[in-house]
Structure formats: C-alpha cells, structure tokens
C-alpha cells in the first residue's frame, strides 16, 4: 500500500491518543507531543528523530525491523509479531487451540506498548474479512531504511593480527577438484548435482552455464543449510532460514570485522522464529565447516568473520593474498595449483581468461575477447593488475587490447534509419527519447532501438508515408 495512504489510515483509526503522543515524544518532533494528531502525522514520514529512536531500540526490535523489510506486503501482519514477542516456551500445543484473537491479543498488546510507540513502523487496518486484529498490517517506511543501523557491532581485528584465523576450504576444494577429476568429491546426495567443469573454449561452467558471480557462495550456503537441517514450524513460514539470516546479517561486514555467537543469538531468535536449530553457535559452526566464515580464537572466545566475496564494480573483492605464492608465471601464462588456489579467484579468471588443466594445475591465459569486454574495469581488478605487472602474456595482451579498445565498435540488433524527410526527422527527435530510442549518427542517419519499431512505423504511417525496408540479401 502507498505509504501516505497507510499513514492516513494509521492516524485516522489505528492509533490511540496516548500512542500518538508517545510517537511524537520518542521521535522528538519539534512541534511537541501535544500538537494535533494531524500535525504529528505530517512529520511521521520525515527523518526527524528516526536515528535517535532507532538507537533506543533493543537488538531484537532492530532485528525485527530488518525482518519486516524482507517480507511481502501480505505477510506483514499480526502473526509476524510473534517473531519479536514469542510465546512462552512449551506453549505451542496450547496456542494451536486458540482463536486468532486469543492467540495474538498478547503480541498486539506488547507491540502497542513498545515498538509502535517508537514511531518507526507504519501500522494500519486493511478492509478484509475477519476480525479487526487480523486486519492490521505493518510497514517499515522506505525513507527510514538508510538509517537502519547494522545488526551487529563487530570487533575490528586487522589481517595482520588475525593471521591465526582458520578458514575451512576443504569442501569447496573438493568441488574445485572436479575440474581435473569430474567424479572427485561428488557426494552421494542427489541434491548436489551441480558440477563445475571446464568448457573446451577455456571457460568455467557451473551446472551448464558459465560460472557466474556468487554461484560458489550459493552452493556453500545451500550445503550448509542442508547440513544444519533446521526444521520450520508447521504453522509459521515467514521467517528466514538460519543460514540465510546469517548471510543477511553478515554480508555487509568486511573480513577484518569479527563477531561472537552471543551477538548473533538474539538476532537469529527473531529472524529465524519458528525454525528449530540448536543455537547460533551451531549455525556459525556449520557455516564455518562449509567455508562461508573464518574463525579466530581471542581472549578465550571464538570470533567469526565472513569469507565470501564482497562485490564492488561487478568484481569480487578478495583477501590480500600473497599472489606470488598462488601463481607460477612462465611464458605460456600463469599457473595455479588447484590444491591451494583460493576458490574465489575462479570467477575472476572466468571474466578475462581461458583455462587449461594439467594434472592438478590450472593454466590461466588471457582471452582477448573477454579482456575487451572487461577492459574498462580492469584497473579495479587487483588480480588482473598483478598479472599485468608479473606475467608477460597478460602484459602483452592488455597492451594489445588497449591499443584499439573503445575505438572499434560493432553494433548489432539495432535498426539504422536514413531519413531524408525533414518533417520526419523533427518528429523522430520530438517523439522519441534521445540516447534510448535513437542516436543521431550523421546528418540524416539515426540508430534506432528495435523496441521503438512499432511506434516508428506508426509515426511514418501517420505522415502518410511508408517505411522502405532494406535487409541483407
């Protein structure tokens, strides 16, 4: 629902006067808590006092707001509040016998008394069948999203100090070894049927498609999720699976940011409500087993940090590795040992290289066509930069591409129009979008998007003229 309509409904009939006053107080509106409802309403969707109000929230409440924004509109209803205000333990059987109102009156009371008064959630009635309680919906205003604080405050430990961290690449390594031995490491499970293979063109393929960014991570997460085997509650399906909740929580953390299982515990309790898993520590352990996280012992505590590639400019940012230990450079290209190669680099290789295997070694050579495609961003790719500095084949290839890159462009799939009629030229420029629908090429020549074809023919017909088509014989 449109946020303004939701806001009108919220202030018209969902809030009590006390709640309106509490919202004005918690958000610290300059007009004061005694200002008329209408005025408080007008300030609600501004960012006034959002930061302060968010700072006052508990970890669970913040986790709930994060969960709320992952939910579809129809699922943002009263039952979702159970994630934040869970029923007392061992009450499942009792709850299942209750009516909707009996079951959720308690959570609604809690919600009205706490989170609602923070002034961060839209709360309004929709006109559906059922009780009034069942007709309430929530929304987290879009304008507040940038101000939502991260769920975890990590401890910073730089790479130098974290040299004793441990990453478990074993399982992913088995998968990578499929490049030299297709049967290697294949689990008996039918569900892990995605194979990594080397195409004759020298490109890596993942389950029949070129290896894409995130394919390996998705596989790792899926496998960890399967191993964890967290069962969802039979009557609740809106929360996140533990591994994905973990991914959601940590995917903005940098590799030098570390956190503890205790920090994750209350978050998972809200975000994974209904799932049966042992503990946050167990979830972290499983994620570590599958190489998603790195582990570090400090002060008698176990810290974790994400080990999946953070994507910037379409390229995975990988850890600063001593690359001279990874590659052996010779005249044919760069050789890497599959037994020690950091798996995340495979996607980079696939972006601009062609590969060959020899026993357990992988030869990476520059692929001119691929290099042309990524040439404009190659300076962001630290790996390619390193190879340019150290491997002569890459230096030569990049120099060759650089000489003509951006000067020779072959366009396909667009129409080219030759318009000698001045009126039609003006009409084209008035009725179509420059840069998107058409681009002027020369005096009366235009490149035209295929999608504009129908409208173009209509425009010409309206002028009582006809399109003369020319196609290659």
């Amino acid at each position, binding site marked *: 629902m449109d946020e303004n309509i939701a806001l009108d409904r919220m202030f018209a009939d969902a809030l009590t006067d006390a709640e309106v006053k509490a919202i004005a107080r918690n958000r610290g509106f300059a007009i004061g808590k005694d200002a*008329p*409802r*209408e005025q408080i309403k007008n300030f609600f969707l501004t960012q006034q006092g959002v930061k302060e109000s968010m700072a006052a929230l508990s970890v669970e409440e913040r986790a709930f707001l994060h969960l709320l924004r992952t939910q579809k509109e129809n699922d943002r209803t009263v039952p979702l509040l159970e994630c934040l205000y869970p029923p007392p333990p061992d009450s499942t059987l009792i709850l299942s016998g209750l009516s909707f109102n009996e079951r959720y009156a308690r959570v609604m009371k809690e919600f009205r008394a706490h989170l609602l008064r923070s002034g961060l959630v839209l709360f309004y009635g929709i006109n559906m069948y059922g009780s009034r309680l069942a007709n309430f919906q929530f929304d987290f205003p879009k304008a507040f999203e940038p101000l939502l604080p991260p769920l975890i405050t990590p401890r910073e430990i730089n790479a130098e100090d974290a040299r004793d961290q441990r990453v478990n690449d074993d399982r992913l390594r088995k998968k990578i070894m499929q490049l030299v031995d297709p049967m290697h490491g294949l689990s008996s499970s039918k569900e892990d049927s995605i194979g990594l293979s080397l195409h004759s063109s020298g490109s890596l393929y993942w389950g029949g498609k070129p290896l894409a960014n995130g394919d390996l991570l998705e596989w790792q997460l899926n496998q960890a999720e399967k191993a964890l085997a967290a069962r969802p509650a039979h009557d609740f399906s809106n929360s996140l699976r533990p591994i994905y909740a973990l991914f959601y929580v940590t995917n903005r953390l940098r590799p030098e940011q570390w956190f503890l299982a205790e920090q994750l515990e209350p978050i998972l309790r809200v975000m994974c409500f209904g799932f049966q898993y042992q503990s946050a520590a167990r979830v972290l352990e499983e994620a570590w087993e599958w190489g998603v996280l790195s582990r570090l012992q400090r002060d008698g505590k176990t810290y974790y940090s994400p080990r999946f590639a953070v994507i910037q400019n379409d390229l995975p940012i990988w850890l600063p590795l001593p690359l001279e230990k990874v590659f052996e450079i010779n005249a044919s290209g760069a050789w890497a040992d599959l037994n020690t190669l950091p798996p995340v680099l495979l996607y980079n290789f696939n972006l601009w290289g062609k590969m060959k295997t020899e026993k357990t070694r992988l030869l990476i050579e520059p692929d*001119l*066509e691929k290099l*042309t*495609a990524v*040439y*404009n*961003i190659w300076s962001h790719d630290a790996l390619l930069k390193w190879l340019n500095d150290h491997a002569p084949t890459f230096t030569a290839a990049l120099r*060759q*591409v650089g000489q*003509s*890159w*951006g*000067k*020779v*462009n*072959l*366009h*396909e*799939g*667009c*129409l*080219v*129009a*030759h*318009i*000698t*009629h001045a009126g*039609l030229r003006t009409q084209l420029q008035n009725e179509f*979008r*420059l*840069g*998107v*629908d*058409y*681009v*002027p*090429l*020369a005096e009366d*020549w235009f*490149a*035209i*998007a*295929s*999608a*504009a074809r129908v409208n173009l023919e209509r425009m*010409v*017909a309206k002028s*009582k*003229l*006809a*399109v*003369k*088509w*020319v*196609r*290659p*014989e």
Partner: protein
Amino acid sequence: MNLTPLTPEELSALEVATNHADFHHDLLAYLDYVSVNSIYRKSRDETFSKMVLKDLFRLFTSPLGSSENKNVNEAWLYFVAFLAEQLKLTDSDADSGDSDLNIFWSMGNSENYVVINRQNYAAFLQKSPEDQEAAIREELIKIDYKNYAELLDTSPLGRLDSFPDWLRVASVLKEADWSGARQKLLASLAQLPSGVWLPVSGLLQAFKQEQPYFFLPKNVHLASKRLKAGRYAGLLENLTQYNERGKEINEADPDAFERVEGRFMERFFEFIPFLLRYVELAYDSKPYHGLYPMRGVLRAFRISDRLIHQLKKTIPPAQMTVQPNFEVVVVAEVYPAKIMRLLESLGNVMHYTTGQSGPSVITVLLKREKVVAAVAADDELDVIAALAGLSNQKLAQNVVAELREWTALSSAFTLYEGFGLLEAPPEMVVDGASKDLRVRISPQMGLYARPERVYSLLKKNGLAPLRITHEGAGLQELPAGVTTVFSTEDRPLRPPVKLPSFTLQREEVIALRVSDSKQAFAALKAALLEAGCPLEIDEASSTLRYPRRYDTLLNAVMAKLADYFQVKVTGLPLAEASTAQASDLPSAAPESTPAAAALPVKPKRGRPKSA
C-alpha cells in the same frame, strides 16, 4: 436452332434474377486471403469461423447486389472455396495450425486447415485473365457428379430444389454424361442471339428433337430387374418436397424427356451460365403446384455478350483510363486480375459494377500513401511507366507530376535491419571487411551485411572490437572511455530536460481549533458559514481554516456565540473590528437565519462572561 423470343407481355409475368457477383474476382480474393491466413474449418460441418466469414464477405462481391442475404452470400462463398479446392489451388493441411489448441478442437481430425498451394497458385496467377476465366469454366464443366451435380445439388444462387441425394449412387444418374451435356448446352447457347429473352422450353424441345441423348445415354447398364421404368429407372417424383419414395418416371411416358432432361436443363442454367454471369434468368412468379423436384419454374433466359465472346474467344481487351482527378477507370469483360493487382497496390477501389450484358466497370482512386508504400516495397516498380503502359490515353501532366513526387517520397524513410553498424577510424577497418560494406554513412561509420564475419576479421587482425548487441527496451549504454556517438556511462545522451512549471499562490490562513466541545465547534462552523466565510473544515481535529482576509467576520460571530458559550481565546488574539471593512466581505448573518438552528437553546440564566 431457332427460338422465338418472349414477348414483353410474357416477360412481365416473370420474375427476373440477376447475378451481381464476379466469380473470378471472388476466387482471387479468396486465394489472396488464404495465402496470408491459414483458415480453419470446423470438423463438424466444415464451416469457417465467423471471423473468417466476416473478412471474406468484406472482400467478396455480393451476388444479390445491394440487397444482402446472409445465406446466399455464405453459399456463394463456400462454393468459391469449393472450386478453389477443385482447381487444386488450395489444400487441406494438418500442420499449418496456429496452435495445439486447434488440433484439440478439431477432435482428432487434423486435416482441417485450408492452405494455399503456392506452386499452383503462382502458375494460375501467371495466366492471362481470359485463360483464368476459361480455367474456371472448364473446371465447372468437368466437375464430377459425386462432388456436384445439377439434379442432385442446389446451385449456390439457385431457387430450384434437387432429387434426393441417395440417387447419386442408386439411379441412372451415375451413367449420365454430365460434362458432355454441359459442354453441349454451352455450345448451343453460344449460337443463340444475345440480349433477348428466350424460352427454356424452346431450347428443351430443340434438344429433344436434335440431341435426345445429350444427357442420358440411349442404353443404360443398370441391372435388368431395375429397368422396368426404362432409361429413367430410379428417378422419382413426389407430391411433396420431402425425401420420400415417390413414383418412378417411366421412359414410355410421352413427357419423360421434359421430366428428366428438362429438370436438368433448368438446373444447368442456374449453375455455370448463371454463376459466371453468362445469362440472366426469369422465373415463373406464381406459386408452384406440380410434382417435386420442381420443373417448369425457370421459364426464360437472356444470354449476355460475355458468353458469346468467351466461348468464341473474341473477348475485347480491358480498357484503362487514368483521369486527371487520379481516378483510374477500368472497363473489362473479364476480371482484369493483373491490372487490378497493380491498381489495388496503388489506390482504393471506389466502385465495382459488374456488367450483365456488357463489361464491368471498376474505378480506383490513386492514393499517395499507397503509391509511396508500393514503391517503398518494390524498388523496381516504376508507377508512371506501369500506368502509362496500361492506359489507353496519355497520362495527364498533373498526374505525372504528382506521381513523380509520391515516388520520390518512397525513400523518405529507409530502415536498415539485420546489418552491423561499425564505428571505427578508417585506418582500423580491415580490408577484407569492405566486401560486406553496404552503406558508408560517414568516414567512421558503415553498415555491414555480415556482422559476424566482420567481427572475426577485426579480431583476427589483432584489434579489440567491442561487440554491442542492442537488445531489450532501448539502445545500450557503452562503457566509459569508448569513442562513439552512442550514449556512454561517462557521457550519457539525454533529451534536454524541461522543468515542470507550477503556480504558487501564497495566503495567510487563520486556523480555529475548538477543544472541549463538539457542540461549540458545530455552532461556530455554522455561524461562520452563514456569515459567508469560505471554510476548510477538519472534523477529526475540530479545526476550521479560512483566509486571513475573512478574519473580521469572526468578531460578529463570536459576539453572537457569547450568548451561548463561555469562550476562552488562546494563541492569536481576535482581530480588532475594522471600521473600514472590506467591501466584498459579507456581513454577519442575522439571528433568524438557519445558522441559528445549530445553536443550543439560550440559557435562561444571565449572560456568562467572556474571557
């Protein structure tokens, strides 16, 4: 053969029937339609869908002229379709369906699509109009009696009924010389004078005397036990039109020839001669009381020149004139298919009068957009030369000038599709690529016929060509740093932004917020409205708003309310009553107005003090 023409008195007692449709034209229209649409026939009754019928009715000429009759039009249309199949110009096809759904609807009978037989159709179109017409006539003559027979089927435009269908296999009719009889009858008609009404009975008597076995052979080969009635064994007459067993016609009867060959002749007239507009017919207008199938109802016929000309192959050539008002008039006895194919691509048919005794007249108005489109579609078409070649008069100067201008407009908008557009400095374009160069747009740009090959050549020559496929909703944006006329990430092409404009009217508004009493709010609202104050009312927050210039009205209203309420004013103080009150403002309403109804009963105790 000498027949006595009907007198005007005799003719006046008859009802004349004329066929206004042009079989030849309609057949070509049907074939054109089928060549671009595959038509589905319902498996149950082999009919076309309503949509197809509607389309075809629009394209066809109407047999009854201006008086439309859906049944007659449909019968005519299906007969045209039937003949197209007989001529092997269309086929039934299983695989041309639009979707599997249609296969489902066809209930397993998948051969329900009518499709064009491209080879035969092309060959048919190659023929001259006269030969096309002759082919149609020949096909009608040689139609097998199992598919169509005058005595067993009703002509699409006929009024006469038929013998029951089972006689097709169980009577002497299967031994009749159908084609020969049609041939002989047509030949004899060609010998008769045109333009005069002649009696059918006269022709019948002439055949009875001169060629009594023109239809049924002298000796028939039916099993002897069934030959009790002689040559006409199995042909039955009934008292009613219903298909019941009646009385067999006996060869020995003196009028047996009239009862069998006579019936055939009447129905023959309704078939080839009438369908092809070779004759007009005159029917008895009185109700029929004889034995069925009907006979003696078709009384007279009038032969047109078309019949004589066609059978004697003396057809005058089509005449075409292009008039200075851009109307092209074509006069032709046979539908001028080739001329019309050209003219329909250049203009709209305005009138089509099918001639009965004389030629048909077709008027086409040349249209600019059609001429432009026709020349755009066919580079080699020289409209002026084509029209001048066909016209029997020199084209008018204004027509030539205009046509020349229209022709020039055909290349006003040329679209190249399927080419590769190469942007490259001339020194980087490899030599081998020039083979595929079709258009050089500028020194840096060219259109190439085989982009794939050009791309490989560029790569082979050590260049790093960027290959951009413009798919989806618009043209792709190229990476930053590329030398191109297209939009790039660092130099996006955007239309000049036109900022939307708006008008802002500023005014001061006074808000009156009434707390504690809904009744006071209602009274204040009513009094202010009564005083003519334009209010914005917010019932939920008990707030009234009005422009500041109306603020002076409030004093009077407040004074009146002071009789009923104790008022405490907070915030802005009340405006001082101005002596120079704005002249356009209304004065406060007197107490007797309807606003007084909103006020509570005046308290009996003394007036409360206002704060």
